[in-house]
């Protein structure tokens, strides 16, 4: 992905290829994700994919037999599992996390009215902000799911202090949550491939205004308002 020499947006940053393909001649891009968010996203993505792959190897005997090296796989699964939520915590902690923190607030601010978004016939009435309700639910459910998987995973990996019913329950919950979070992750990846501009914005950090006005009109207005304030 290279940018056309000399073409910069109003923020002085190169315009991405996808933006260039935009039919609108006046295409300008907006900053959707800052560097911290993109690093957070991709580090977590690699971590979660590692968890899914190693988890599948550990869980399905046909994979286990083919791969072998069980102890190594187990250790990778345990360590990536323990690490999974660390990037989020670190990203939210410091002064580099201002945009992460504000997006966490956006993602967890779900109004009751937003349920209608899931009804396609009523969806148009809703003026969306930076994230749509589906993205919000995905973020909430997969993060909470990771917390539950981490807690139950620790019981499975270090079972000795726990009484039997807790081990039984943790086994049951770890299985079903892994299944559910796995579905969320594959759904997320699927949507990303169907929305290449959105996917690209997680790499470049920018999205063209035309796209944003269609998918996140309230967010564009909010940005414009803030800019007006600054000026």
């Amino acid at each position, binding site marked *: 992905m290279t940018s056309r020499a000399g073409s910069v947006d109003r923020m002085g940053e190169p315009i991405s290829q996808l933006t260039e393909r935009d039919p609108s001649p006046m295409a300008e891009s907006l900053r959707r994700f800052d560097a911290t968010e993109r690093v957070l996203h991709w580090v977590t993505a690699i971590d979660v994919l590692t968890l899914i792959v190693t988890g599948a190897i*550990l*869980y*399905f*005997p*046909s994979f*286990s*037999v083919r791969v072998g090296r*069980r*102890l190594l796989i187990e250790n990778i699964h345990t360590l990536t599992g323990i690490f999974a939520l660390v990037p989020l915590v670190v990203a939210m902690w410091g002064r580099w996390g201002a945009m992460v923190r504000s997006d966490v607030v*956006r*993602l*967890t*601010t*779900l*109004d*009751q*009215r*937003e349920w209608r*978004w899931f009804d396609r016939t009523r969806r148009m*009435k*809703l*003026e*969306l*902000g*930076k994230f749509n*309700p589906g993205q*919000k*639910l995905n973020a*909430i*459910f997969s*993060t*909470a*799911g990771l*917390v*539950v998987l981490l*807690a*139950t995973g620790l019981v499975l990996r270090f079972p*000795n202090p726990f*009484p*039997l*019913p*807790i*081990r*039984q*329950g*943790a*086994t*049951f*919950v770890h*299985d*079903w*949550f*892994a*299944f559910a979070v796995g579905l969320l992750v594959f759904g997320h990846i699927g949507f990303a491939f169907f929305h290449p501009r959105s996917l690209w914005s997680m790499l470049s950090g920018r999205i063209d205004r035309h796209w944003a006005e269609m998918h996140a009109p*309230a*967010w564009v207005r*909010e940005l414009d308002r803030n800019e007006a304030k600054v000026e």
Partner: protein
Amino acid sequence: MTGKNGEVNESVEHAETPSEPKRIGRRLFLSVIGLGVVGVALGPGLSNIESKFLNIFSKKPGTGLASLLPGASQFRIYSVTNTIPIVANDAYRLRVGGLVRVPRTLTLADLMNMPATSLVKDFQCVTGWRVPNVHWKGVMLRDLLDAVGVEPGAKAVEFASFDGEYTESLTLAEARRADVIIAYEMLGAPVTPEHGGPVRLYVAPMYGYKSAKWLKSITLVRAGVPGFWERNGYDVEGWIGRSNGRTDQPVD
């Protein structure tokens, strides 16, 4: 969306600047955590139900729709140490001693030269999962006991694992059952290291923790000492469906 405010509600709404912001996001997040906690609490019961349900549908290990569901028909590999101990077939030795007339140390070949018993039986774990119709092959423990001659005072059999930690025990009566074998084949092939190879115990009517893996020694004693998990709260008499607060269907 009718009544006095109908007009207002029909207009475009600002999702992120609601007049009365309700962060149901936090509530949803905590609900998922809560679901996990409830799942852990109810898990033992639910996994009992799931196990019975899947048992009806799964006829072969690892096949069919049921095997795609979480918790179904899959072996989990457990080890109480942090390694999977590996001993080569040639180097493998099984010591049979204690209150016996002729203590013996058997090689894998010695075991394979004894009359073999094949079983096709489920493996039920006390943590809830069950693998149906596993093929097992080995020497009946009672044949081995007869071969070394049990002294009259012996009332129990202790098993130790070459992982250096794991121990188990059975009463002599249990050890003499026809469905208790010293297995060198499992799932139609030599027992792999993760499943406790080259030689492990298989106690069909009891939960998996009784079926000690990586079998190193068999010792006849007056009274059995509780095994590794039994010192951590599991029932010594680990009958499937009648112990550890579980109601799984027994292995026939």
